[in-house]
């Protein structure tokens, strides 16, 4: 019985936090959408019908009812919240399709390129960090450390167009657009990966060089442990903690990054759907996507929390100690502190 209580005591606050994040997101998005100037229904209709949009007040009122946009903001807030709790995200004004279906259809496409991008980014960051760690000359090491800002500074649409013109139009190796042909996910994933790799590399290399200066690595070098072994056994683990924190944030970046990449590469996905929905002021879709991303974000946060326990046993211990008192608070240590306190 007490075990159940302890699990509840552990999960309860996490769940409450999750619900709070989603509710707060819903409320903020609702306020933004409701109090922005302009009529969302007319905007969505106009994006569908162009010059043939009908502005007959009676017809508009009927459509308002149909899309759950009738009544005072207060009525709408509760009405839509009720729908949300029933698992209903509403119907897109621009396409007439259920928002839940639209997200379910496009999400896998975005997850595909975001997932590949994440893997590529981690590999690039690790390889670069490894090369910088081994670099025989100071100038070479400094040069390698200076490259990443470029990765962040070059806009994704430019990288994308350059990759297309080289790999698709010049070499003819990969398809330029769409997701019809095999290999079509590679160029968008690379485009998406470059800035992420740059961010990861910076965090990764900083942590590695910090750990390299610490006593236990000094001891290992003195004992004649080969550099590759030092890198994998002593440095990598230390570098993982801050990197995982950044990874959590990166998920948010990937969600935003797909908007540009999916437009340039003509891929169907969450990012492109968001752009279209914002342009059309299709508020049901905007709200659905934001809620979905908030939920994913909260879930990733939770996983990152748990991952700390796996990677760093000390946080696991303090986590257990904490659960008997104020469960879940301050369990995650500041990454900087963790790397500095590693015993020699």
């Amino acid at each position, binding site marked *: 019985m007490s075990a159940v209580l302890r699990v509840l005591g552990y999960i309860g606050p996490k769940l409450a936090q999750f619900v709070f994040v989603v509710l707060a997101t819903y409320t903020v998005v609702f306020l933004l959408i409701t109090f922005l*100037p*302009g*009529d*969302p229904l*007319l*905007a*969505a*209709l*106009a994006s*569908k*019908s*162009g*010059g*043939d*949009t*009908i*502005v007959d007040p009676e*017809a508009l009122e009927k*459509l308002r009812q149909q899309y759950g946009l009738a009544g005072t903001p207060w009525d709408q807030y509760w009405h839509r919240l009720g729908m949300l709790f029933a698992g209903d995200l509403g119907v897109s004004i*621009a*396409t*007439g*399709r259920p928002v839940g279906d639209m997200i379910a259809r*496009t999400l896998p496409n975005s997850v595909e390129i975001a997932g590949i991008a994440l893997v590529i980014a981690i590999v690039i960051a690790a*390889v670069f960090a*490894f*090369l910088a760690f*081994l*670099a*025989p*000359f100071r100038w070479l090491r400094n040069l390698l450390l200076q490259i990443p800002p470029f990765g962040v500074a070059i806009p994704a649409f430019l990288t994308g*167009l350059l990759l*297309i*013109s080289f790999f*698709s*139009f010049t*070499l*003819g*190796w*990969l*398809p*330029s*657009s*769409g*997701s*019809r042909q*095999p*290999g*079509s996910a*590679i160029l968008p994933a690379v485009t998406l990966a470059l800035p992420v790799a740059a961010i990861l590399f910076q965090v990764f290399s900083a942590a590695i060089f910090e750990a390299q200066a610490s006593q236990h690595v000094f001891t290992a070098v003195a004992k004649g442990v080969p*550099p590759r072994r030092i890198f994998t056994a002593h440095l990598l683990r230390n570098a993982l903690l801050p990197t995982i924190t950044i990874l959590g944030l990166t998920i948010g970046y990937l969600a935003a990054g797909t908007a540009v990449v999916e*437009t*340039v*590469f*003509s891929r*169907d996905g969450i990012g*492109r759907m968001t752009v*279209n929905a914002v342009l*059309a*002021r299709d508020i049901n879709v905007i709200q659905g996507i934001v809620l979905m991303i908030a939920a994913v974000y909260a879930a990733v946060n939770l996983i990152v929390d748990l991952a700390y326990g796996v990677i760093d046993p000390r946080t696991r211990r303090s986590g257990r100690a904490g659960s008997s008192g104020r469960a879940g608070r301050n369990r995650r240590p500041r990454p900087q502190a963790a790397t500095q306190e590693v015993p020699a």
Partner: protein
Amino acid sequence: MSPRHASARWVAAIGAAAIGVGLLAGCTTTGGGDTGGEAKDELYIAVQDDPVCLDPQQVTLTTALNIGRQLVDSLVDQDPETGEIVPWVAKSYEANDNLTEFTFTLRDDVTFSDDSPLTAETVKANFDALAALGSTAALASQYLAGYQGTEVVDASTVKVGFAEPNAQFLQGASTITLGLLSDATVAMTAEQRCQTPVGSGPFVLDTYTSNDSVVLTARKGYEWGSELRTVKGDAAIKTVTFAVTPEPGVRTGGLQTGEFDMILDLPAADEKRFGTDEFTIYARANPGIPHSLVPNTDRPIVSDPAVRKAMILATDRAEISELTGSSKVPPAGGVLSSATPSFLSQKDALAYDLKGAEKILDDAGWTEGSDGVREKDGKKLSVAVTAFYGQDVLEATQAQLAKAGIELKINMVTAGDFFGAVASKDFDFLGAGLTRTDPDVLRVMFSTASAARWAVVSDPELETQLATQAETADPAARAGILEDAQKRIIDDAFLVPLLEVAQVHASQQGVSGVEFDSSSRIILHDVTVKG
């Protein structure tokens, strides 16, 4: 560690990484587009937007209309050159004298791609369903304004009835918007119809992947093309793929390298690049009202006819066209676009005349102010235009009007705010065009009785002309009235035309037989492709 060792390891690591990249690239060489050298039965077209919905009767988006046109047949067809109505699936048709009843006699060999026959009942079901859809089918509801019902006279004869005269209906019946769908499709909900419309056209919908592509395959045994088609029977091309490619650089790059046989919506800036023998450019002005400044004459300064007349004279349409339009289409030359039946060229009245504009304003008491903007009774000659597209067109206009001392403020808004302004009449000018195949577009834009009215003008004479043309069956008489209406609109400066909006596409040299219909949508029935 010794530097020598370390650098050797470093080189090895780089080498391994390079091999890895090479392998990755090697694995994926199969994905590229191929450019064969023989006659092909596949056509690959890059389009700008996702069609969203494929039901030809509901959509108004240009891309969706271009795709949908291949799927459905219409009762009649319209010659894009002469404006003449010719038979299609209706082998004959007639209208009563006051244009309230239209009788069609159908061919008896037409079937839909689900093998169901096209009957008089089908036509009735189509129009009844469209009338029930109401504003969900925005364009169709305007063609069917005043629809009372369809009477099935016999198995191959239908009579469509209207409460009021409807001069545009016969022309509307030639458009894709009143194209015919199978009984099963018509019975579906509006949303279902969007995904799987079944028509009797030369092509059949194979797959539609949202935001990605639409694939059509040619129909076997298609024998009922309109007499405007050169190919009789089945389409020459077996498969057509519309690849949704919003980025213009990717469309033009793909055309250049042969990945696409054809691209729709060629950017004006790329016309030179594809103007060589290797490529073909297709261009046709949209029928309807050109991109214009549409006035609200209830507003203080706009209400002054002298100001509006001066604006017409102070805008240089040739320059606007050169700066912002397609080189393939002439500058705006009237109230209607040159592709519209009954178009009246008003080049002389619309000729650029800065001196004339200045004189009109001087005479009306608008004198030059200290900052170059004219004034009268302490009020500045400053008006605003509300628009949601075509900012470049308006900026060119702004610069030209400034030379005459007229300040034009540009108010770019979202599409929703634009139609919000239309609904509340809260604007000086609207900056937009209106695409319609029939000159009745004038009534839609200017008549106080029109549901989709934009211009706020009050002129009983014009109102009468617009109402009369809509109920005049005699083409010559109707053309006469329309001519008077066009003259009147320019005389009273109820519209400042700026630019003819055009459809501009490009293809590889080997593609031939692409045609425009009277609404400037493409027809692929006659297309052949050589690699």
